[in-house]
């Protein structure tokens, strides 16, 4: 089992995929955090002042904005999760694409060990991307607040709790991606699948579920909702909720639901795909 995990990590680190995705993460998460922090920071300081708002108005609006620092710093997971999933998936589909999966199965013919090793190895792989994402969100987000003249709240314990939870969440997403890759096997299929599901299908499903009282509790179990719960409760969906808040699971529940997705995809991948002949 340990050789298999070591082999998976060497495979992962010996191609350029991980650092390409790390750069994408810095760009997407970091620049989003930077621009959002800058805009919000400016709006609540100079922007308000130049519009002639009094300190009472600013206080009221700031309160209505809620924890916008958390929203910016939470972008590592809320924006970065599909990159983590993609990374886990591509690590597997690259093996099928270049047929190195046959070499792997020759080295370890007990395929369930290979599957387990891939899912376990996804956690440290995910940690690399997670650190990049969290550093980008906190670093460039804080830079945005500084430039706008707002407080950074970097020293707050809530910020560091958020950072830690996001690391865990992104590691789990990499494992979920690994499971998906085992199930889909096709490189193009998994890229399109992850994008369509996370950016299109799931948001629609979630909104539909949130509209009806009877399905609202189910919406908490959708991957993005579980992810928000696991990452500390920041949700972009509060804007579309009639109560202004989103019903989410607790942090441990969120982590367990994400873990369950990873396990379900991995087990399904093993039984439906991995055991087949490699021709």
């Amino acid at each position, binding site marked *: 089992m*340990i*050789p*298999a995990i*070591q*082999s998976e990590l*060497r*495979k992962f680190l*010996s*191609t*350029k995929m991980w650092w390409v995705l790390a750069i994408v993460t810095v760009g997407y998460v970091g620049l989003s955090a930077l621009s959002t922090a800058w805009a919000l920071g400016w709006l609540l300081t100079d922007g308000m002042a130049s519009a002639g708002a009094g300190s009472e108005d600013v206080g009221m609006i700031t309160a209505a904005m809620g924890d916008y620092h958390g929203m910016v710093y939470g972008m590592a997971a809320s924006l970065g999760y599909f990159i983590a999933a993609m990374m886990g998936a591509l690590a597997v589909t*690259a093996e099928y694409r*270049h*047929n*190195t999966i*046959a*070499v792997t*199965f*020759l*080295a*370890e*013919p*007990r395929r369930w060990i290979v599957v387990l090793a891939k899912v376990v190895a996804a956690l440290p792989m995910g940690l690399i991307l997670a650190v990049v994402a969290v550093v980008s969100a906190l670093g460039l987000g804080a830079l945005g607040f500084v430039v706008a003249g707002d407080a950074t709240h970097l020293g707050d314990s809530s910020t560091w709790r958020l950072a830690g939870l996001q690391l865990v969440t992104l590691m789990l997403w990499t494992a979920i991606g690994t499971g998906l890759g085992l199930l889909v096997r096709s490189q193009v299929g998994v890229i399109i699948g992850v994008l369509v599901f996370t950016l299109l299908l799931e948001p629609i499903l979630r909104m539909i579920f949130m509209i009806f009282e009877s399905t609202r509790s189910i919406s908490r179990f959708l991957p993005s909702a579980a992810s928000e719960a696991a990452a500390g409760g920041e949700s972009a969906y509060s804007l579309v909720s009639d109560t202004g808040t989103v019903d989410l699971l607790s942090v441990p529940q969120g982590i367990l639901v994400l873990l369950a997705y990873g396990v379900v995809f991995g087990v399904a991948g093993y039984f439906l795909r991995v055991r087949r*002949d*490699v*021709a």
Partner: protein
Amino acid sequence: MIVFDHLTKRYGPLVAVDDLSFSVEPGKVTGFLGPNGAGKTTTLRMATALIRPDAGTVSFDGRPYAAIPQPGRHIGIALEPNAFHPGRTALNHLLMLAPYVGADKKRCEEVLGFVGLGDATGKRVGKFSLGMRGRLNLAAAILGDPEVLLLDEPVNGLDPEGIRWIRQFMRALAESGRTVLTSSHLLSEVQQTVDNVVIIAHGKLVHSGSLATLEAGNVPRTIVSTRQRDALISLAQFHHWRVSAGTEPHSFLIEGPSAGEIGAAAGASHIILDQLASQSSDLEAVFLHLTEGQGGMR
């Protein structure tokens, strides 16, 4: 000893490997021969648990491949001609396999040097020629210093120098007591290297034994031309020769007698022969003869 025991694999109506049984002796180089599509690759993949047989088993000293702990330390395999990530360097390709056989970086470099890739360790496999990929595949196969090697068409894509090298490589392995099973669609490719041959066609065994037993099956083949077709055919029937139409008009292929016997018999029967040409009856001809028919001698 590798034992292939009543191995069968079907793909829909096609029987790719049909009740195939043979064994591979230790310490020898065995050529696993057959035309393209005969089922060689499928057989080797069933031996190594990549493909599940519909029936039958393959065992290495009594154990199936999947039951051997750290199989790479006992059985070295070069089946996939092109199973490399193009962005990975040669050394990294071996390092990724190294944990499975307990090899360190030094061993990986040593093996790369041994197959003649010492100068290309840091080069990406995407930039490798077919011959270099073949050598890297062999490096991966011997990484765990196995006592058995299974090689699928290892000569493919190699330049003449590479072909000479791999022949020496296989001989050296056998001389050090290792067992080598190497497949090829051409007998001539491995003729100088192998001790034994296993020949299959249409998934069935057609011959298994030493090269000498194959030579014993060497039947003379002669091309004759004559305008007296009926007379020639009745002559062939009288002598129990196998006769078939040749490639040219009025030409026939006769198997069994030597050219001299045919000439004498034709003269005695007053058949005028326009051409009487002995076919170079090398082992390749025997091989073709065996694999063209639907499984002749066993």
